[in-house]
Every structure is written in structure tokens, then in C-alpha cells.
């Protein structure tokens, strides 16, 4: 069991080098004295197998973390030898009576967390199910503040799900439930209520020799769900709305002769200075069963009856893309020296989004 509730959600993060060394002389102060965060964890787990088709486990843990890194708004004396000299904290309005205001990463916090987990898995004759209940309590303390429950730290979490074969072992109906207890946002006075969401799915496994699909509805009952906000100096969002009912459909075709790509480019703001004139780049490639796109564009591929692919877009785009067929692989390439987003251009004005399409 991993006490994942604590460090990643209670202000303890994995800072990049900039947190220790970067300063810009305007708003960010370096902190070369930043120390390593430390964590001590003790776990006790028990696992039991019941027959060949049921297993269960239980566990408890305790974690203590020190030197947790957090951003602070502080005041610093004028730079000396490229060093930021801390002189005190800002007042409630963000002003400094001495020195100038800066943001700095510092070892400010500690936290302790205790929790437990119960889980079970069942797998028999194609039917599978799992359930997991986690309870935990975390308290954190930052310098100058009382010890309290951190944001985004629910006291309980329940996850359960299962899959039932509808047709042999080739077609499965699945259902998953995730429920999360009440938690605090940032500011902590904002409470995010407990919620439960249900996902449902239908998926094939080798339904035919060449084709599989996966259909899924996330948040089946369209439940209002919120996530915690991230602390910022000025944040008008106290809680972040999450996706409501969402449909996904994934179609997968395997290597076969009758494979034809339809490629749709959804984003095209790569070359931000277009002429405004459209042209079409056509591929003569046939007989390929794999498409490799070596360009930062989004594509989708579906099966059809014939081979054909075209790129239509601003004629400047035609100069930086090419089709290259190597055996059964069709490469869509962007020339290295062409991907240079240009400063000051508005791509929406002059650039028609490139669009891949085929005519069957």
C-alpha cells in the first residue's frame, strides 16, 4: 500500500532545479539553502488468497515528512552578489515594510499521515471484480501556522468495479464506481463535498481477427464533480469543475490488406505565418498497414476500402510536410528546420488548419 494521499497532495512536491537556483531580480528569489525533503514510512500489510479466484488484502501505514517545500511570499533585501537576502515575511496585503517582495521556495512544512486500506479481487470464469476502501487522516504544519488538515485530502476513498462477459470471452460490459469523501480546496474555507461517479464501458477482445473496439461513458449519471483549486497569489477559482458525462469510442484495426487511413489533423497552429492560399498534398502510397506521424499534429486513423490520403492547408504548410512510405509503413514527416513558430503572427488569421482526409 502506498500512502499516496500525503506527499503529493499536502504541499510536498518534487521541485525542479529552478526552485533552488533560479532568481529573476523581479519576482522570484533563489534559495540555494533549500534542503532535501525527507519522509519516513512504516507499513504493515496482510494478504490472503481464497481459492484460485479470490484474494483480499488489508494494510495500515504511518508517514512522517519533514522539510516539505512550499512557495512563500517574503521580503528580501537588495541583491548582493546575485544573492537574495531574506529579511521577513510580507504582511497580509502582500507589502514589505523592509525590502522588496519576492516568491521563494523554502522548507516550511511537516506532515504526518496515518491510514489503512482494505481490498479484494475476484476473477472467475471471465467475470472479474474488485473493491478497495481507503481511509486516512493527514495533518500538516507550516512555519507560523497551526497544524491542520491539508487541502485535497479526503478522509476516505472507495473504488469498485467489475466486468462481465457478454459474448464468450470476446465482449465485456464493465462498470466502475469511484467515491471520494469531503475535502478542502484552497482557500481551505471552501469545502468540496463528497461525490461518487460511475463509469460504464463495453469493450471487445479479439472480437474479429482484424477489429476491436472500446466504448466508454465516463460519469454516466452526469454527476457534478469538482476538484480542488491550486494555490496562487490571485486565484478566482476556489474549486475546479471536472468533466461531466463524456463519451469515448476507440476503434482499433490490426494489420490487414484492406486497411485505409483517414487522418484528421485537429491542430495546425505550427507554422504561424501562412500565405492564406490553400493547396493539397496527395499521397500515392498504397499497401501500408501502419501510419507513423512524426510531427506534432493530432491524427486519427480508420479502416476503409481503398488507400488514399491528402493534406489540404495553407500552401506554406505543404513545404514542410511529406509522405514517405517504407515497406508497409507510411510516415508523415515534418522537416526539421521548418517547425519554427514565429513571433507576432496570429495563426488564426492566415492559416487554414491543415486537414487530412481521404476520398473513398
Amino acid at each position, binding site marked *: 500500500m502506498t500512502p499516496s494521499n500525503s506527499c503529493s497532495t499536502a504541499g510536498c512536491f518534487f521541485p*525542479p532545479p*529552478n526552485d533552488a537556483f533560479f532568481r529573476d531580480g523581479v519576482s522570484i528569489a533563489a534559495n540555494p539553502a533549500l534542503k532535501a525533503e525527507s519522509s519516513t514510512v512504516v507499513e504493515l500489510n496482510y494478504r*490472503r488468497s481464497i481459492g484460485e479466484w479470490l484474494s483480499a488484502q488489508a494494510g495500515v501505514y504511518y508517514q512522517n515528512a519533514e522539510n516539505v517545500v512550499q512557495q512563500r511570499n517574503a521580503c528580501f533585501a537588495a541583491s548582493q552578489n546575485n544573492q537574495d537576502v531574506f529579511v521577513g515575511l510580507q504582511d497580509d496585503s502582500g507589502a514589505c515594510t523592509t525590502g522588496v517582495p519576492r516568491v521563494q521556495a523554502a522548507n516550511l512544512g511537516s506532515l504526518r499521515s496515518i491510514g489503512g486500506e482494505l481490498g479484494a479481487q475476484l476473477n472467475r470464469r471471465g467475470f472479474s471484480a474488485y473493491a478497495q476502501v481507503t481511509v486516512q487522516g493527514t495533518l500538516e504544519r507550516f512555519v507560523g501556522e497551526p497544524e491542520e488538515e491539508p487541502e485535497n485530502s479526503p478522509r476516505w476513498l472507495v473504488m469498485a468495479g467489475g466486468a462481465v462477459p457478454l459474448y464468450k470471452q470476446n465482449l465485456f460490459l464493465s462498470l466502475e464506481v469511484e467515491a471520494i469523501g469531503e475535502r478542502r480546496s484552497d482557500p481551505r474555507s471552501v469545502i468540496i463535498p463528497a461525490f461518487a461517479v460511475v463509469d460504464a464501458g463495453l469493450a471487445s477482445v479479439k472480437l474479429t481477427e482484424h477489429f476491436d473496439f472500446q466504448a466508454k461513458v465516463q460519469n454516466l449519471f452526469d454527476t457534478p464533480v469538482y476538484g480542488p483549486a491550486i494555490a496562487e497569489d490571485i486565484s478566482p477559482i476556489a474549486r475546479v469543475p471536472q468533466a461531466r458525462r463524456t463519451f469515448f469510442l476507440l476503434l482499433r484495426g490490426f494489420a490487414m490488406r484492406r486497411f485505409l487511413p483517414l487522418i484528421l489533423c485537429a491542430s495546425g497552429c505550427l507554422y504561424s505565418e501562412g500565405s492564406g492560399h490553400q493547396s493539397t498534398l496527395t499521397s500515392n502510397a498504397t499497401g501500408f498497414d501502419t501510419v507513423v506521424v512524426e510531427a506534432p499534429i493530432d491524427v486519427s486513423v480508420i479502416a476503409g476500402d481503398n488507400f488514399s490520403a491528402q493534406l489540404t492547408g495553407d500552401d506554406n504548410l505543404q513545404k514542410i510536410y511529406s509522405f514517405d512510405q517504407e515497406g508497409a509503413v507510411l510516415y508523415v514527416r515534418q522537416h526539421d528546420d521548418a517547425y519554427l513558430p514565429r513571433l507576432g503572427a496570429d495563426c488564426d488569421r492566415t492559416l487554414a488548419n491543415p486537414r487530412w482526409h481521404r476520398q473513398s
Partner: protein
Amino acid sequence: MPTAPYGSRFDSPDTRSATQRGFVDARFQRRFLNDRLQLTVRGFFDGYGYQDFLRYDSPPIGAYGLDGGYAWWSGGEARLAGDILRGGVFELSGFVGADALSLQTTSEALTRGYAQIGPLRIPTQEARLSGFAQVEATIAHNVLFIAGAREAWSSQFKDGFNPRLAAIWRVTADDAIKLLFNRWLLFPST
């Protein structure tokens, strides 16, 4: 979607940022002494760059800011793992190794318009060395003890000792109890 990063002018076509990332990793593995020992040697280079141009006001004031951050990691690791005793009631295995890391960073900043700051260019560097070892002892095929430790030295941050202990008891073929203890350090530039 138009943005205004770092409080810059909303939806300014001048504001931009770019990041670059690249790495090389090479690994060598070899088994010898009838597969009882395995040597692993690894080397890597990792580079990261970030630049931004932030427009705060149009000419004639023309306030803007430039930031840059660059980091290069290079290092290596050597590990020797082996089965010391095997096939009996008491089995013993483990590994020992060392790794080294060199980190260099450069920060750049420039502000014009409302304030004249910079150009600042701040290079830093850090070196790390670690030694680590772990032994695993199996008794009567159903009790496993693991003891390991890592001693890390850093030229910038406080040195750290990271121990880990574990005991796993397979009570029956269907039941297992596991007790774990570990303490780790996370260096700020990891």
C-alpha cells in the same frame, strides 16, 4: 486559448515560451559465474531548456520580460547483484553499487520598460555521489528479510542516509504478512 502567463498582457501575440528536452541513456549488462552475478553499468545525459518572452505593455513603453532556464544532468551508475547462497534452507542474495550525478543550471532574466533589470545570468552546479547496498535473506522458503541503505553526498544539500527494512512472512501458501520501514530523502533538484 489566449493566456496571460505571469501577469503579462492578455492575448498578446508577442508573448511566447519554448521548452526543449533531450536525453541519452546507455546501459550495459552482463551475467557471469553461471548467472550468479550480474553487472549493470549505466550512463546518461539529460538536458532541459526553457525560454519565454512576456509582453507587458505595447510601445512606446514597450515593457517586456525575458526568462531562461537551462539544466544539464550527466551521470552514471554501476551495480553488482548476485546470489550468494541459494538452494538451501537459508538463501542469501543482494546487490551493491554506486552512482554519480553532475548537475549544471543556468538562469537568465531581463526586464525592460517599467523596470530596467538585468541581464542576469546565474550559473550553478551540484555534484552528487551515492553508495547503496541491499541484502535479501530467505529462511525456510517462507520468511524473507530485506535490509538496504543508501548514503548520499551532495555538494549543495545536506548529506542523507536512507535505510529500508522489510520482513515478509508467508504464513501459509495463501497468507502473507509484510512489514515495511523506509526513510527517503528527496533532494530539491531531483
